[in-house]
């Protein structure tokens, strides 16, 4: 269990009701997302997660600047002072 700082970017800021940065306690990414569903409700769930509760493909999550796809995905452990970034893929240009 760690108290981590989470930053949101782009369109995902809408999913948090406008919050760009929050501090949360969670032991892994899966638990962190559960916490967000509790605190931000249905709009977060619909925007960020698919029907199975996994992050949608355009949602990227980084722990200490490392993409969780290359760590333990949703089981990536969190410890105190870890920094988490949740941002949408950028497709324009």
């Amino acid at each position, binding site marked *: 269990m760690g108290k981590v700082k989470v930053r949101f970017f782009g369109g995902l800021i809408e999913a948090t009701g406008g919050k760009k940065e929050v501090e949360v306690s969670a032991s892994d990414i899966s638990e962190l997302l559960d916490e967000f569903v509790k605190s931000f409700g249905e709009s977060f769930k619909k925007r960020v997660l698919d029907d199975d509760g996994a992050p949608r493909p*355009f949602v990227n999550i*980084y722990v200490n*600047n490392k*993409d969780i796809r290359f760590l333990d995905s949703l089981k990536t452990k969190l410890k105190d002072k870890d920094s988490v970034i949740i941002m949408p893929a950028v*497709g*324009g*240009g």
Partner: protein
Amino acid sequence: MERTDLTDEDLERYSRQITLNYIGYEGQSLLRDGRVCLLGAGGLGSPIALKLVAMGIGYLRIIDRDVVSRSDLHRQYLYDESCIGLPKVEAATKRLSILNSSVEIDPIATSIRPSNVEELIEGVDVVIDGLDTIGARYILNRAAVKLKMPYVFGAAIQTFGNVSTFIPGETACLECFYPGLRDEDLEKCATVGVFTPLLDIVSSIEVSEAIRILLKKEPHLKNRLMFVDLENFCFDLLEISKNANCPTCRGARTEVSRSLEKAVSSVCGRDGRGVFIIDTRKSLNVESISNKLRIEGIILKAEGKLGLTFEYNDKVRVSVLKEGVVILQVASGSGIHNEEVALRTYKSIAERLGLPLA
């Protein structure tokens, strides 16, 4: 390859780059011999083209399937008001040739498809990304991996953007860390907007990476994704790596991206109009279309060698590009609200004007 000396004119023109230790005489010679393919000549592509040409690369191939719109001008300052309705690659070539006549510019007015992408990107040292959809980027990514072509990826929307450099065989590819994306799920600049200074930052970093490749220096963004957000003023370097299960890197990719093989697709509207792109995949004779329009009494809005734009009626504006791309810009109230109707409308226009069917 035998390298020729820089000319006296080169020495004067590029003196600030030659005195710059980072480039120098040797570096300027490498740039002069450098060959780059730019895909997309819009928000990112136009500042990329300006910088590469000003700096004196040898050859720039520009591929784009669009015409200049009024709503491009606040950020795509490669173009000006006189370019509206002209194919972007044609307007770009005109401007870039007077900026630096020693650079060979090769404009291609076409859309990027799985069937033409390999031919489009071959024979260069690096490809640089000025595209505006993830679908087109996947097509490019797969070809770049297959042909072992270095690919500088860049994307931008609202106030934030990404840059990364992919060296096939060495680094992650686009689909290692952005797999399975669909354009429908991503924000589009026509609906959420884009900040001009952001495009300059993202395009500058892309150019810096491409220049490093031409200078035979290691790119800075290998296995790193740069993220910039000017609203919140963040610059982050995120770590990515090759994904052992990436089908593109494993060479296991056989299917093509269906959405871009479609004959017609709607893209985000502009200048208050709905926009449909129809890819006939047939070369067109722009001059004879122009003559036909005159005979029919249809007013041309813009006419170039690689394409033209005309008002078919007060609700439908049509642009036709030489390599077979047709763009329909439809006003509200035209009744053209989906791809099927757009295609039907195009059919009747095509029959009247003798254009190829999709």
